[in-house]
């Protein structure tokens, strides 16, 4: 049963050193506030899982939280490189970063398999390319009916999934809409889950019967964190701060500039008032 908590308490009780953690969000609804709290609590040795490790994982990697990254696209969308990610891979700073690298199709299928309680995902992919030669978690099997060679990857089963959503109701059910990415799958695949929300409402009101709703009983903790997805966006609340994504390129380019930014904007700042 998802219980309402303060962000600092929720992170302290759900995210431990050495955990595998998926902070998901496909451009939209990226849980920045929760990620920043993980940085503030100085978690170490995390396996960070995410299809698109953009600025948030760049910050968490640069801040020394990560031991390993499971991912499929690590860039600053429309801008260029993630400099902290590159520094970790190319120069092992601030620590070596083990990579388990996939394609988007593989990650999306692996979350789905995790949510469905399957040991692995099976899909058509990875033919004739080099990723299987550097990732032993990419294997092939023959379809038992047609003989077709299909790709397989292990299901993703994170210790913790962390997502941001638009609304929770008083019972702790959560509604998200817009580009919904893989968040539902990540939550259902994970052992524990934390959802930060823009607002808590008495009732979700008129909605499509097919709205994406995560019932409170599949969630571990719900946290009110208005603006918790900034500088990404929350459809219906605020737009993506594209200028910050552009500015991040210069901020993260060198280590000193990055550390000054983290000190001022994350470490030196308490969690957003709820």
């Amino acid at each position: 049963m998802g219980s309402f908590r303060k962000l600092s308490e929720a992170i302290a009780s759900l995210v431990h050193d050495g955990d595998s953690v998926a902070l998901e969000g496909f451009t939209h609804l990226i849980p920045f506030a929760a990620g920043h709290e993980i940085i503030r609590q100085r978690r170490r040795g995390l396996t960070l899982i995410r299809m698109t490790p953009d600025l948030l994982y760049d910050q968490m990697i640069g801040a020394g939280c990560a031991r390993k990254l499971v991912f499929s696209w690590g860039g600053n969308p429309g801008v260029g490189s993630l400099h902290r990610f590159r520094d970790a891979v190319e120069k092992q700073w601030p620590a070596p970063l083990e990579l388990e690298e996939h394609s988007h199709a593989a990650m999306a299928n692996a979350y789905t398999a995790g949510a469905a309680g399957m040991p692995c995902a099976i899909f058509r992919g990875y033919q004739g390319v080099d990723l299987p030669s550097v990732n032993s978690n990419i294997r092939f099997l023959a379809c038992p009916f047609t003989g077709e060679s299909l790709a397989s990857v292990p299901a993703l089963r994170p210790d913790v999934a962390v997502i941001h959503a638009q609304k929770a109701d008083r019972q702790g059910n959560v509604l998200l809409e817009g580009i919904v990415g893989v968040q539902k799958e990540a939550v259902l695949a994970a052992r524990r889950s934390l959802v930060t929300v823009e607002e808590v409402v008495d009732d979700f009101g008129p909605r499509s019967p097919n709205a994406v709703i995560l019932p409170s009983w599949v969630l571990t903790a719900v946290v009110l964190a208005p603006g918790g997805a900034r500088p990404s966006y929350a459809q219906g609340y605020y737009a993506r701060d594209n200028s910050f994504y552009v500015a991040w390129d210069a901020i993260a380019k060198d280590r000193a500039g990055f550390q000054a930014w983290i000190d001022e904007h994350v470490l030196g700042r308490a969690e957003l008032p709820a």
Partner: protein
Amino acid sequence: MTYTASEMMTIAAARALRNDDVCFVGIGLPSAACNVARLTHAPGVTLIYESGAIATRPRVLPLSIGDGELCETALTTVSVPEMFRYWLQGGRITVGFLGGAQVDRYGNLNSTVIGSYRRPTVRLPGAGGATEIAASCGRVFIVMRHHPRAFVPRLDFVTTLGHGPTGRERRALGIPTAGPVLLVTDLCIFEPDPETNEFLVAAVHPGVTCREVREHTGWSVRFAAEVRETEPPAAGELEVLRELQARTARAHGTAAAE
């Protein structure tokens, strides 16, 4: 009307899309080309972004693959697993429009590393959707700026299969889709030789010489028996592209407006 090499590239790439195409759109250069097509000769084209937006009609070019603009102007938005499983793997998409950091003469793409995988000189973003887009879409169009460091004889890493390292592997694997059928640059247009699958220069843009194409290509480039000259951008095409870029720059700075 004067125009830049970059404008010629985007417009030449846009022209390749048909009104009845269903197109999986990569971010950056492909996104600009696809939206110019939609706003000119192909108003019926269906644009799909991997974030889940189906039949989207953005007023400005998105900076990321998942800007709110894409969802707000889409017919519907599905989850990412549904996008990759039902729509892409399900074989419902006619064209995949891709870019990359490196391309070779058989249309294989590298967006993973420069140098070795374990000790890369440059760590690039990685595969994203490209690997399965190139395998599952009916045909693949590539648009890239023409530079010898990008147009290489041998890729450092095969992120995305074109026709294979010797041009034959795709066929040998029994992949039923056509693979790369077009490569548009700011200098010229390549099309594959029907026998060998090697990209041959089929057309050069106005004012570009064959020597320039050779100098900008890292492999010993070959030309089709008859090389056409690309039709220069029409006034209407340029107007649409420039208005789109101006709207985009007003919305979120010049970075997304290329």
